[in-house]
């Protein structure tokens, strides 16, 4: 059984295979792992089972179409899928537009450094571990915040999670992108 750490890095490989080879087997593996999680997320956010199933298929199809835009030096695959599912929830369940920041485009010419990618994926893994070790009550609160069960005024930042290092990692990746863009 591969460690969870290797698993995160593998998912990056899956996205790459989808991007470069249109690899349906890689897509199927990602689907089997993530689709039931996305569906649970959408149900908990207020969708009925049929709507959640339909939206999940949309989310996974989006992942296929946007595979070339995933930047593994800035996010884990789980985080990227989370943001796609969250945006879909805002569209469909909250019926609002989501204003998005200006893009920092990156393409093959800015292929991120492999060491940065591995470091980012390991950070994400560490964060997952830290969350798993939180007391049940705090973990529930976090889940409720991200599953859209708390209003924006009820949400307060959690402490004690290793977010500083992730922030610094992303900051570094952004600096490199800005530099590459001249």
């Amino acid at each position, binding site marked *: 059984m591969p460690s969870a750490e290797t698993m995160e890095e593998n998912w990056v490989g899956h996205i790459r295979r989808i991007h470069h080879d249109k690899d349906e087997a890689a897509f*199927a593996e990602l689907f089997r792992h993530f689709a039931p999680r996305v569906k649970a997320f959408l149900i908990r956010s207020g969708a009925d089972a049929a709507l959640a199933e339909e939206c999940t298929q949309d989310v996974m199809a989006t992942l296929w179409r946007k595979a070339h835009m995933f930047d593994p030096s800035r996010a884990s695959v*789980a985080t990227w899928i989370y943001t796609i599912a969250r945006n879909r929830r805002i569209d469909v369940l909250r019926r*609002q537009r989501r204003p998005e920041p200006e893009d920092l485009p990156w393409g093959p010419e800015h292929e991120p450094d492999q060491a940065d990618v591995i470091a980012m994926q390991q950070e994400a893994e560490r964060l997952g571990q830290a969350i798993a070790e939180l007391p049940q009550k705090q973990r529930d609160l976090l889940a409720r915040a991200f599953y859209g069960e708390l209003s924006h005024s009820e949400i307060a930042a959690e402490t004690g999670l290793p*977010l500083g290092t992730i922030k610094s990692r992303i900051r570094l990746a952004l600096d490199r992108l800005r530099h590459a863009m001249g």
Partner: protein
Amino acid sequence: MTATMGTIRHHLTDETLLAYSAGTLPEAFALVAASHLSLCDECRARLGAFEAVGGATLTSVGTAEMGDASLERTLAMIRGTPGDPDPAPRRSAGTLPIPLSDYVGGDVDAIRWRPVGGGVRQMVLKTGDEATARLLYIPAGEAVPEHTHGGMELTMVLSGAFSDEVDRFGPGDVETADPTIQHQPIAEPGAPCICLAATDSRLRFRSWIPRLLGPIIGI
């Protein structure tokens, strides 16, 4: 003068970024957040950290079984479809960050200002009705009438600068005001101040004249 990376001193709060990353921020506030994030890599990185928590939560909390044919159906959706084209770089050449110019329909010269008294002008932007977003034009040296808030107010400076009881706010800076803050922003002399303000309930003006006007001008 427009904001440049590194000159921003007042950032989005953790609470705002967390709510934006969770997708629970009303659209008007999300517009301020996206506008600031367009100019501020520091907040962009902090947002990325909060989103990482969202991603980790997705992997650790529960699953719901997908229908038998769901994978086949999704494969049918994607088979033969090309990837989305690379998005055109969305980087503003004007004064307004792109998420904001999307709502205005252009840059500063496309803003349809309406007078609200005292030389102050506004344009209310169309967003979901949980909160209201408006652009404000404050002539150099002039003040926005003193007010308190029933709820939260986020104000981002787009050009010029204002000062209030809290501090000075320049291009790109965001002031986060809660119901306890009573303030009177005054535009700096020399240039008008243009800002984007989002509120989640009607502002309450302190003196009686603007209070009567409040419901009419919608500020």
